[in-house]
């Protein structure tokens, strides 16, 4: 069974159609790279899957959650969707007023209602695994691009989504860090997480040996 199925996706921005008839799917533990020039619709597809932008046509199925244009994302469906999909933004969007550690345990405590101590321990583990265990007390503006990137991944993983979306994850990384990130993603995939990565970084795509989808002008072309 596919971890995610996107069929005939249409997205509009105002009167303009920005994604037309995009279809693809990914298995559990698969890494899919969505490649294409800027403005080809990669980010838009990720935002729609993440429930941030409305869907104009087609459907998205993630496990037992099914989204299409006839059923606008209501409160309960949105909650379910967000339990299935996580997202790491290009500019990380770490909560600016909280430390790295606090960024990671906030959602497990308030959304999943985990105990604060357990959530904090788990957050430390995740940050350690991602190699930023020494930066737990830093505020976002004190982190380098690579550190912020990894804290953002830890924050998304802390709520345990089966599908993780990543938008241009290598944009703020130097080549060395790119290699590290690729191996991190391979590890995650090995653990069963499905990754959909929007990128135009060919080296990175090769390093994480993933399946490539090409997007052009709002369509998936291969």
């Amino acid at each position, binding site marked *: 069974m596919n971890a995610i199925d996107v069929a005939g996706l249409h997205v509009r921005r105002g009167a303009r159609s920005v994604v037309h008839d995009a279809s693809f799917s990914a298995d559990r533990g698969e890494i899919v790279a969505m490649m294409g020039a800027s403005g080809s619709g990669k980010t838009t597809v990720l935002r729609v899957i993440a429930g941030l932008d409305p869907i104009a046509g087609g459907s998205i199925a993630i496990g037992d959650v099914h989204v299409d244009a006839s059923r606008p994302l209501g409160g309960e469906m949105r909650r379910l969707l967000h339990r299935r999909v996580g*997202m790491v933004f290009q500019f990380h969007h770490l909560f600016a007023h909280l430390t790295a550690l606090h960024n990671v345990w906030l959602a497990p405590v308030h959304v999943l209602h985990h105990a604060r101590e357990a959530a904090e321990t788990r957050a430390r583990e995740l940050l350690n695994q991602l190699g930023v265990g020494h930066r737990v007390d830093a505020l976002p503006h004190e982190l380098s691009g690579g550190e912020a990137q990894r804290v953002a991944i830890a924050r998304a993983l802390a709520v345990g989504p089966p599908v993780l979306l990543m938008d241009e994850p290598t944009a703020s990384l130097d080549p060395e860090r790119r290699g590290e990130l690729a191996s991190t993603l391979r590890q995650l995939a090995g653990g069963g997480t499905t990754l959909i990565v929007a990128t135009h970084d060919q080296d990175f795509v090769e390093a994480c040996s993933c399946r490539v989808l090409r997007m052009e002008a709002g369509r998936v072309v291969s």
Partner: protein
Amino acid sequence: MNLRTLRTGTRAPVHFVHQRTVRRFSVLATVLAILVTRAAAQSPELRWGGDAEGGAPYVEADPNDTTRVVGFEVEIAQLLAAGLGRVPRFSQAGFTTLDGSVTRGDFDIAMSGIEDSPARRSRLAVTLPYYQFREVLTVREADAARFRSLADLHGRRVATLGATLAYELLAKAQADNGLVPITYEDDVHPYSDLALGRVDAVLLDDVLAERRVRQNPGLVNQSSEVGVGYYVGILAPGNAALRDRMNEILLQAMRDGRLEAIFRRWNMWNDDQQRLYARLTGGQPAADERSESSAASPGPWESVRRYLPALLRAALITLGLSCLAMALAIALGAVIASGRVYGRGPVRMVLTAWVEIVRGTPLLLQLFVIYYGLATVVQLPAFLAAFIGLGLNYAAYESEIYRGALEAVPSGQLDAARTLGFSERQTLLLIRAPQAFRLALPPMTNDFVALLKDSSLVSVITVVELTKQTSILAANIGSWVVPGAVCAALYLMLSLPIAHAARRLEQGWSKKPA
């Protein structure tokens, strides 16, 4: 002409005729005076100042022609001007600024129910008194038997005008028998608040008390002797020669009955004046008994020392009121801002309209409406009204700050929160509001300091806070220099720690979170 005058004295009918004749003459004289003013612009002027807001019978705008003033002091000014061969010209000035204005030379003389006092004598050239008044205690009819004198008013609220002999008497009574003086800025609201039950008595000049009791049927004046004072004209200290010439004119007018005629016309003539004029024309001092105000005037520092406890208490009221009002403004401002950011169309429209109305009208007017305007519906205690007025007013400003701050939180922060599964409410409380608060803190600190100073406006609804207490002290010692400096120092002592704490908090955020 009213019945009271007709009933008093056996010679009333004669007075009646006399008075009407004089009134005709006076009208004629006024018309002539205007014609003369217009025709002979080169004839020297007697510039005199008063506060027409003080109203009848002192100086008030003529109901038939609001560009003119009428009142017994207007007629005394005409009398003085005529004696000096000058043309009177009136200047409006606030009652509490008259001393300062005359010293600065804005006009030659001020007359506006100004009381004789040792402080004034030491700083200004003061004319002979032209009227003797009694301080009269006014109470509600139902209380007439139990509140006969100040001594009966332990723990009760007693209203008066600030910076007057009556206030001095009440301040002394506060120390002696624990009554609570409440100061007003005008002489109408003490009596209307007495009728409403907001205060238990009013102590003011008989001139005012008698007029107000006639207008408020439920009130009575007590006959007990509380104090005596005199109305005088004041001139700049360097104007002693002019003052002496005016004294000659006043004495002459006392002898030939022209002053009596003026006061009869305004229903103010009584035996006190007859005795006062007899003493003055006989070369005796004005005061026949021990004078209330004969004690040597203390120096400014001594006065400040004496008033310091009252100033500190007033500073506490300023601080307490500002803190409470700010708390209300923050809470309400946050609700309004949330409504404007998250609410539906109609909610947003109503809230926007509310904010514009509150921001677009003067705080002073809002305080008046809440305290006096609503008095027939709900009688709020002064402090509560001040708290609500300031709080509501500042809530409008706060809501604008919070709305701007909420909208300034980057949308990426909200997207990140949504993808983690936070509800809208959690996103607001855990992510958006805390970040907005950091953006809002500097303008909020600014507003709190502004509120601290705007709280001085609540003196118009009888709350004696720091500025009001200072102006009472300044009027008492006749100078703003020392009280002004003490007042400024107290305001700074209140605002600087707040500014400092806010800066520390900001610095803390930019380093490590709490």
